């Protein structure tokens, strides 16, 4: 079977997914050891979404994400060490230890959070896109949010405003079927998320979020439409979270059988199998990839352990922007 993608690109994508998976597995361990505190929302199972979607974005595009943003941050290229230090609460973290797991920021990569109010990132994304439009920059603002957010007024207001003003926003709905523990069908009268865009005269599509290359292709199509000035686009990425909502979740709302059915469609296993089929990957290469990822995460943890704490005297330093007298 002929591969639809170059070997080097395919291996780079696989490595990103594996990096996210292993980074989060180690994060969960570190959480049980008390190294990471607060909430920890794992992305495991959804890696193809962040990695696939990010391929469509350029360095000067903007990203707005949610509190489950480890995958987007890593796929955007924020160093694992910077993210791990943030979860340790160290001053060397990407947000100086002010945000933790839920609030990763990196202005240099135009990564605008890390938003933990469901739906709260959408208006900000609309504004970022408005700034680009007013300044004539051909950029895209990609806004990730979950299926829970479609119940929020901000979702509807933001879709309307972005469509009304023809703003370059790529709305990426990561539909993992649960708003924390409430299934989509239990909180939405219309569970086909794409159809919600119709009410705002906005283009929309849906894609299998467990299929990396399908995600990449669908996001590229959507992003190019946005970039050429067609207005905003809503892309629904159908995925599943294998782990609990957060470290505090006993998972009473879904069956083990359901989780197992989705685990059978693990995006990393699916993509690995295809790479083997195409002759891109053997056991030795996979072992080398895993070793390189493990080494990167070991180094990130070591750097986080060694990182400095912010001095208590700086407690209120970043509340306002310093102004030269």
């Amino acid at each position: 079977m002929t591969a639809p993608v170059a070997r080097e690109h395919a291996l780079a994508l696989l490595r990103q997914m594996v990096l996210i998976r292993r980074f989060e597995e180690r994060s969960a361990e570190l959480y049980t050891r008390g190294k990471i505190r607060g909430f920890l929302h794992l992305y495991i199972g959804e890696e193809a979404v962040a990695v696939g979607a990010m391929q469509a974005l350029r360095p000067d595009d903007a990203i707005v994400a949610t509190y489950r943003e480890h995958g987007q941050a890593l796929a955007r290229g924020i160093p694992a060490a910077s993210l791990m230090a943030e979860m340790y609460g160290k001053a060397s973290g990407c947000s100086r230890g002010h945000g933790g797991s839920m609030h990763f920021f990196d202005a240099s990569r135009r990564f605008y959070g890390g938003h933990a109010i469901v739906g709260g990132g959408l208006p900000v994304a609309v504004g970022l896109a408005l700034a680009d439009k007013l300044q004539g920059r051909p950029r895209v603002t990609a806004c990730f949010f979950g299926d829970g957010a479609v119940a929020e007024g901000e979702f509807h207001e933001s879709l309307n405003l972005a469509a009304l003003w023809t703003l370059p926003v790529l709305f990426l709905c990561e539909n993992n079927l649960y708003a924390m523990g409430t299934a989509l069908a239990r909180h939405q009268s219309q569970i086909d998320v794409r159809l919600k865009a119709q009410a705002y005269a906005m283009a929309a599509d849906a894609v299998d979020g467990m299929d990396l290359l399908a995600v990449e292709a669908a996001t590229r199509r959507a992003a190019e439409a946005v970039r050429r000035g067609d207005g905003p686009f809503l892309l629904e990425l159908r995925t599943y979270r294998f782990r609990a909502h957060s470290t505090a979740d006993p998972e009473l709302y879904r069956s083990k059988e359901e989780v197992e059915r989705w685990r059978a469609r693990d995006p990393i296993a699916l993509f690995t199998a295809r790479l083997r089929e195409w002759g891109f990957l053997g056991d030795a290469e996979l072992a080398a990839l895993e070793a390189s990822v493990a080494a990167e995460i070991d180094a990130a943890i070591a750097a986080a352990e060694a990182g400095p704490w912010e001095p208590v005297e700086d407690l209120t330093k970043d509340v306002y922007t310093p102004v030269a007298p």
Partner: protein
Amino acid sequence: MTKMTYREAVRGALRQALRSDPRVFLMGEDVGRYGGAFAVSHGLLEEFGPERVRDTPLSENTFVGAGIGAALGGMRPIVEVMTVNFSLLALDQIVNNAATLRHMSGGQLSVPLVVRMATGGGRQLAAQHSHSLEGWFAHIPGIKVLTPATPADARGLLLAALRDPDPVFVFEHATLYPTEGEVDEAAGPAEIGRAEVRRAGDAVTLITYGGSLGKALQAADRLAVEGIEAEVVDLRSLRPLDTASILASIARTHRAVIVDEGWRTGSFAAEVSARIMEGGFYDLDGPVARVCSAEVPMPYAKHMEDAALPQAATIVATVQEMLRRRG
């Protein structure tokens, strides 16, 4: 100096900002074709066009959030929310984003956003258009809260807000728009965080802001007839608060009455009172008094609304009672 209304002063500052800085744009409900709910932006759409004077849907949370995003993207948005009661629909974006993004990002981001809104009662608009909630906003670190009381400040503080790198909320008391005053159109921005003594006196300090300044000055005039000289301090900015100017005045007069249109319980007046206790207790000759709104949703009928709001007569009576107990 030019005599103009508060409304004209705000409009003049908006026009000056739109002319001088291509990053500035105005958006909000009915700011364009309608000319602004309070006619503040009348004529600006015609001068600057629909890209820079943008009518928005009735989506307060989202257009305030879009202002935050546009500020992050290098613009200098001015967002108009019709009234403070409507701004409650935008509290998520204000409290969870505008106020937090700089700190939560470890100092990487700034949000140079200006949000203007009308506040306050006195126009028989009842319980969903008349409240004074600026004290709530002043509770929130990460934003600044300005309350211009004169046309000159309406202009100068708005220009200062636009120059500020952080989110600034400007509360324009709705009864002030038609009031007149002298404005120096060549003056630069006012200083944020500096109170102003509007009238000097030695018997008592009336501490107030925004729509209550006029009432405090009226009260001071009436008291002067009785030989009581009240000093009137206009706070101008609730956050940052110029505590030093408040304490300096108390050190001169040794008595304080705080006039605040917010409800008394948990009011901004309570914060000012606490700061006087903390920093000026030994300068006081007696307890601090407060003249606030009655604890009731704003009634419609004129006589009831008058009774609910601070009035010059109430301020006079409060000062007289305070001085009567002196002996």
